């Protein structure tokens, strides 16, 4: 299963997200501070993937 890590732009903590949400146009919800934001607004994204 392909995953990526998103770093919340508000609290700067990272959490794990299914790849299907990377470009789905849906807001993520930070589990630490409940901030809602689009993946492209992440403070950082780790989407390395082994083909």
């Amino acid at each position, binding site marked *: *299963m392909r995953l990526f890590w998103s770093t919340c732009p508000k609290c700067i903590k990272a*959490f*794990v*997200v*299914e790849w299907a949400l990377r470009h789905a146009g849906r*807001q*993520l*919800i930070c589990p630490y501070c409940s901030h809602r934001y689009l993946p492209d607004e992440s403070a950082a994204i780790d989407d390395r993937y082994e083909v």
Partner: protein
Amino acid sequence: MNRTPEAKKTSRQAAIGAPKSLDTYLDLIRGDPAEFRTVSRTVNPMNFDVTGLLAQLDRRGEYPAVQFNNPLNMHGEPSKFPILTNLWATRERCAEACGLPRSEAGSQLGARFAELVGRKREPVIVSEAPVHANVYQGEQADLWMLPAVRHFEMDLGAVLLMGLIARAPGENFYNITFTKTFPETPQKGGFTIHTPHMLRMTRAWERRGERCPVVNVLGHHPGFWLGTLNNTPWGDNEYATAGGFLQEPVRLVPSVTWGKDFLVPADAEIIIEGEIVPGERTIVNPFGDISRQYQAQQLAPYMEVTAITHRENAVLQDVFSGHRDHILLGSIAREGAIYNHVQQKFGNVVAVHMPFSACGRYTVYISIKKTEEGQAKQAALMALAQVPNLHVVVVVDEDIDVFNEEDVLWAVNFQVDPRRDVDLIKNVRAGSDPRGLGSSRLIIDATRPTHIAFPTRLRVPEEAIQRMKLEEWLDSIQEK
């Protein structure tokens, strides 16, 4: 006001001959502090108070069931529902729930499970039910009145664990599967489904564009739950399978929302009735799951709550995810399924164990009475077919105790030539869990080779071990 366990006990004293419920089971263990502990101080389950205490017990190697008598609910107010958790954290309690003595919690337990799967008891329908003692509908049906537990630091929020019940449109059999519901609002809960039958049912409703009736059961006799963990064929009524494990018919009652069109367990603790909204999705996860990793944030279906019902003095049951409580809940069922499957084909299985080290899901140790080369690999392939998420299968001889991991790893180290005895199975369906390990599986034949001259394991004669009784031969310890 804080309630004492004694007060609750008096109010819920189970009558002799009463239908099996969580309460009738708890009566068996309430008096034993090694098996059942209570917490009367107020706890906030949203702030890890529950799992913090359980994690400490786990570090000490102690696994009692724990009842938190005064938790806060999701509104931050005192809840009227105690939380019961860690119920399945020992094989002995699971044995007891299956009607076995505690002394038969080893390989007998998997075999007992396999036996009970075939002893279905058709449910009976009753008109009045303890679970309908209190009924909430409309805005009164408030998920947040429950003391849902947030388990791990990266979890999206509190979850309601335990079973979801559904049936396919036009069918009269029910499927019951463990799931988790995130109470996003007081009337809406997103949830994930991980079993094929439940997925098939919910998708069938969605294809018709219709709302799928579902019921979340938040507490019942442990035998009821163990009976729902089987990988039964499509068409089997899992109420009947659960009845086999309870050794009495499950009592069903028409639901508040759909009446006789959807029957619910009469002796459950708390029931949430709801409908999955077709085509709609919401955000759920992360959630710390069985592999002790987090399931990634994802889109998932959600239900809109139509009713909540509960018995008098109901208890909310929870599971300590990723720990023994959760591991045993599924591993014993799978041990039984593998035992049944391989034994029916070959008749040479001695014991099956899915160890804690692989979270009771991803590795299985099988001991067999091998009579010719190749049998170990055949048994392993059958296990992989039976339990799709298995990652590693190790097959050993009957003299290796599969419940003793040191024993199994001795066989791997001293009877396995990797070039000859290890097989990599490629291009198997990838698991839907968070491990991210792809689609290959590993088979290790750790049985002693019989086709070549090969060393054997050293052994003190059993007769000598039995003869040299410690209390007779060791000098008594002199006090200084």
